[in-house]
């Protein structure tokens, strides 16, 4: 079977899993079976895996459990091509916000349809969206951030969840929030439709600052989604304070403020579980977050903190398993996100990598 045909088949199998979830059916096959097939496909068609498997002394053909598949560090997306095909097969390409010195991670896609189907299916479920909603993005439009995976996800939500509407759903232009238009748009909403407001944590902090205590009440049943950290781009607020402030500003109950966790190197996202919205994120059936020991990269005991090994069946043509320097812990039905793994403190005057990266961030 050609690489292309194999990739098509793997995409179809992942999408079948997504469809089954949408229809409330059981998974057509096990996570492990599909995961191992994807991992073997990637090991054959992505050059970098040879070095990674060799360093672990693992033969990719002999893996029988997903945990044996080496996870690709997110930094590898900055240093190497994590993609099974040539440039002629790239249909979408997302870059990390990264640094000012050209070390941005790149995630290439051959078929972005699987990403979109997975995002919509799990997003709809996690947000409890029944009917279409007026979708408002406190972020730039795709033409201003064409290589941002977050903007792509939002534009997917605009198309997938939104009402047919001629008005522009994006409220950040050239880095500034168009507060006047946002106020006018929200005030024009009638009680018959709900709204879905999407933004990064730092964008919402800027919005709250600009609102200066003025409320912008949303219709009943509306949701507000915030994602990501602050990256020094606004003052920092704890998640609980931000939730409270957003609930107050938009006139909604706190459980209607939902956090999302995703990254450029993935195709799937994780959403704060419904109910108390207590910082526990849940996974879709096609993705898993496994806390692993930072050195051995083996799973830690249940309830212990580890760094995030993320297995994502929608990452068909790149990296099924990714390891990110985010600290996580299994909790209830999902996992808690406990912040970035702290970098090694420098001993002596040799500069620490984290110190360089911190100063490089715009």
């Amino acid at each position, binding site marked *: 079977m050609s690489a292309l045909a194999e990739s098509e088949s793997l995409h179809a199998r992942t999408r079948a899993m997504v469809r089954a979830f949408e229809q409330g059916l059981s998974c057509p096959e096990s996570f492990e079976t599909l995961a191992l097939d994807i991992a073997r496909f990637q090991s054959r068609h992505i050059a970098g*895996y040879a070095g990674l498997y060799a360093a672990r002394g693992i033969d990719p053909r002999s893996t029988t459990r997903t945990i044996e598949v080496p996870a*690709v560090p997110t*930094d590898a997306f900055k*240093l190497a091509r994590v993609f099974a095909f040539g440039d002629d097969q790239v249909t979408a390409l997302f870059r990390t916000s990264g640094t000012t*010195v050209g070390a941005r991670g790149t995630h290439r896609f051959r078929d972005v349809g699987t990403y979109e189907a997975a995002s919509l299916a799990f997003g709809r479920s996690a947000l409890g969206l029944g009917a279409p909603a007026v979708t408002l993005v406190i972020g730039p439009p795709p033409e201003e951030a064409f290589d941002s995976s977050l903007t792509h996800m939002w534009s997917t939500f605009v198309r997938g969840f939104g009402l047919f509407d001629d008005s522009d759903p994006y409220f950040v232009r050239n880095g500034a929030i168009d507060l006047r238009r946002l106020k006018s748009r929200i005030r024009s909403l009638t009680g018959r439709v709900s709204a879905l407001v999407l933004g990064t944590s730092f964008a919402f902090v800027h919005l709250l600052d600009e609102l200066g205590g003025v409320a912008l009440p949303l219709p009943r049943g509306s949701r507000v989604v915030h994602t990501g950290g602050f990256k020094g781009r606004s003052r920092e607020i704890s998640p609980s304070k931000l939730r409270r402030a957003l609930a107050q500003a938009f006139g909604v109950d706190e459980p209607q403020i939902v956090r999302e966790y995703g990254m450029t190197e993935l195709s799937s996202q994780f959403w704060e579980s419904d109910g108390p919205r207590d910082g526990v994120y849940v996974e879709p059936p096609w993705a898993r977050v496994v806390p692993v020991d930072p050195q051995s990269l083996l799973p830690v005991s249940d309830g212990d903190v580890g760094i995030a090994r993320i297995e994502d069946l929608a990452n068909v043509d790149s990296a099924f398993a990714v390891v990110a320097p985010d600290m996580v812990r299994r909790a209830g039905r999902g996992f808690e996100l406990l912040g970035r793994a702290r970098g090694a403190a*420098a*001993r002596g*005057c*040799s500069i620490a990598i984290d110190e360089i990266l911190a100063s490089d961030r715009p």
Partner: protein
Amino acid sequence: VNVEARISAVWNLVHAARALYERRASYISEIAFTTGLSPEGVDWGFGCLECDPSAEAVETLASSAETASHVHVILSAGVFVASLRALALARAAAPCVTIRPSSRDPWLTRALVEMAGDRAIRVIGDRDISRIDADCVHVYGRRETIAVVQARARPGMRVHPHGPGLGAGIVTASASLELAARALAADIVTFDQRGCLSPRVVLIEGGGLRAEAFGADLHRELDAWEARIPRGRLSSDEMEQARRWTDALCFGGRVWLAARHAIALGSSATTASLPPAGRHVLLVSIASMKQADEALAPLSHYLTAIGSDDPEGVRAVVSRQVRVSALGQMQRPPLDGPVDRRTKNI
């Protein structure tokens, strides 16, 4: 303070360092415990204590010091011999010096001050800079340490920061790869790369095959050094960072992996590919020396030293703020001023 008196004070410290070097055996275990270096690594590091500087270097150091009435020195840990140069710079600047050694690495500073017997120098433990009655502070350490000191400094107090940095190696097309690898390995092993002069990136002129051959040579040399001078212990954070770097480079390039060192051949020197300290080295192949400046550009802000088989040739093309030396001599700069020339007046 006249220059003669400053020079004399610096020589007094050098003589104390020389005496200390002779008695180094009695300090090795304490320094190994606090720095994390192996005892053999501490013994080797003592070799970088500037016990025999030239008169010209000492005069340069003494005459370039910016005078003050009281200099307070705040030291970082790791490069334990750094206290001699720090004290020399402070004492050349002021008739009164106080020094706060790192709590993780106090031994050599205390011993040096005691042995120098200079009543103008006192070791103090106070961590709050606002309580120090000095008109000038020399602070060595992380950016956040420097920021704290700057924020807490009393009005009128001058703060001379000495931030962290790193070193790079350049192996030219005419170098013997074997000899270059042998010399560079000595620079890497010293202080387990925790110094701001320690090379962490090496440019190899002459193409990919030559860079591969150098990687193999360096791997062999570091193996040999490990038998003589084992790497000390790394913290769990350092181990984690090393793991992350090694895995990313395994995916993105060629890696020579050993239990206590790793060398990777990457496509470029970016901040993402920069290895952590602890005997980890990134090799980058360049076609010609014309590419050297461009290849190091992403790291230029952090670069304090370059070692090369052709120091004169390199000196002609890099910033004058960067110390340039022969390979194998990167950790032994003359005692002619601050190690790091990126910042003025310290």
